[in-house]
């Protein structure tokens, strides 16, 4: 699998006033829920999806079994939305 990167059109940042991470892009904004934010924070241009899952497992050892599937779902959705690119 190839490494995932954030599309340079988008910017990920924490917003105090909204108490959440947001994705910013030309004239728009997406509010992220906590798990989406955790996943995107791992998207650094070096890790592939397996490595991202491993990193999140290490960070959240008590996370339920189906976390892997949730991550896969989110990655698919984020790819479709063009937020992240592969390779």
């Amino acid at each position, binding site marked *: 699998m190839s490494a995932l990167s954030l599309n340079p*059109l988008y910017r990920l940042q924490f*917003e105090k*006033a*909204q108490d959440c991470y947001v994705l910013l892009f*030309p*004239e*728009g*904004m997406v509010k992220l829920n906590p798990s989406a934010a955790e996943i995107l924070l791992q998207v650094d241009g070096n890790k592939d999806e397996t490595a991202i899952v491993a990193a999140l497992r290490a960070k959240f050892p008590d996370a339920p079994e189906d976390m892997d599937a949730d991550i896969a779902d989110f990655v698919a959705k984020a790819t479709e939305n063009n937020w992240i690119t592969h390779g």
Partner: protein
Amino acid sequence: MAKPQPGPPLWLLAEVTYACPLHCPYCSNPTELGDKTDEIDTQTWLDTLSQARELGAVQLGFSGGEPLLRQDLEMMVKHASDLGFYTNLITSGIGLTEKRIKALKEAGLAHIQLSFQGASPDINDLVGQRKHSFAHKQKIARLVKQYDYPMVLNFCITATNIHEIQEILELATELNADFVELATVQYYGWAYLNRDELLPTKTQLEEAEAKVNAYRDAQTSGPKFIFVTPDYYETRPKACMNGWGSTFLTVTPDGTALPCHSARMLPLQFPNVKDTSLEKIWYGETDFAYFRGDDWMPSPCKTCEEKDKDFGGCRCQAYMLTGDMHKTDPVCDKSPNHHLIQAAIAKAGHSQKTLVYRDPKNAIPISIAETE
């Protein structure tokens, strides 16, 4: 009942100057342009940006007029990006040079939106009333991408250029745009004077939309096209800015704070950043809060189950068309004034008038917009 307390203003539109080198017939700026000498100074802008960020604003648009005409633009952009704003420059591209593109990048500018009037020099330069601006814009668009900015191209679609839609799609692709807004003019401000000349017919719009859809379907990469139809052909109005005073805050060149860039036409007393803090403006009880909530609503909106969706529509449109800013937006087919919209549609494609260009020198005081 008290008005609902809003969340933070997420979007700040900083209209830093009224001055503009172009004179587009569809401009939505007020027909009575402000005076350059009323413009607020650099320090007041910097303070305003800091206050807005403190309140929670995160998207910031610099517009005008032509924002590049402010020589302190780079300084404002720098301040804003240091504060953590996502900064958007909304420009005609006139006055943009490689030097400034580079300086703005260094200042932290996140995105540039370039507006085009058409896909060929004839139409573009005719509509904008300036020779050679088309070639210049193409050059600028290439530089914007060369300096790695996300780029949005905005084509204002009217009856005069709608036949060029295919060329527009191709041009945007060739210029490597990331997003392309194909926006049919909204009839506020100056554009209202030219409504009959600018409004495309329903058939023209449907043909254009079909071409956009076909082009989109055949795309595997390239720009994302967004086609915005004028609400004249809808039976429900557009929601006013996501709800009046709920998300957006505009500050005009003279410091007036508005819930939307058009709201100045309304017979209300809006507060000014020169003497009122943004916090007071946003959360206080000035006319800025006038149309928050639904206490002001007339029938049929008052009892309508869709009122949370469109908030009764656009106050400015209601005001321009009916003379009463409290009325239901005539775009709604439940409005007793809906016939006014139908009359405008019937006239589309039949106008004999020539376009009125916005030239400050012969500014025509047709003030549908003004009441004082």
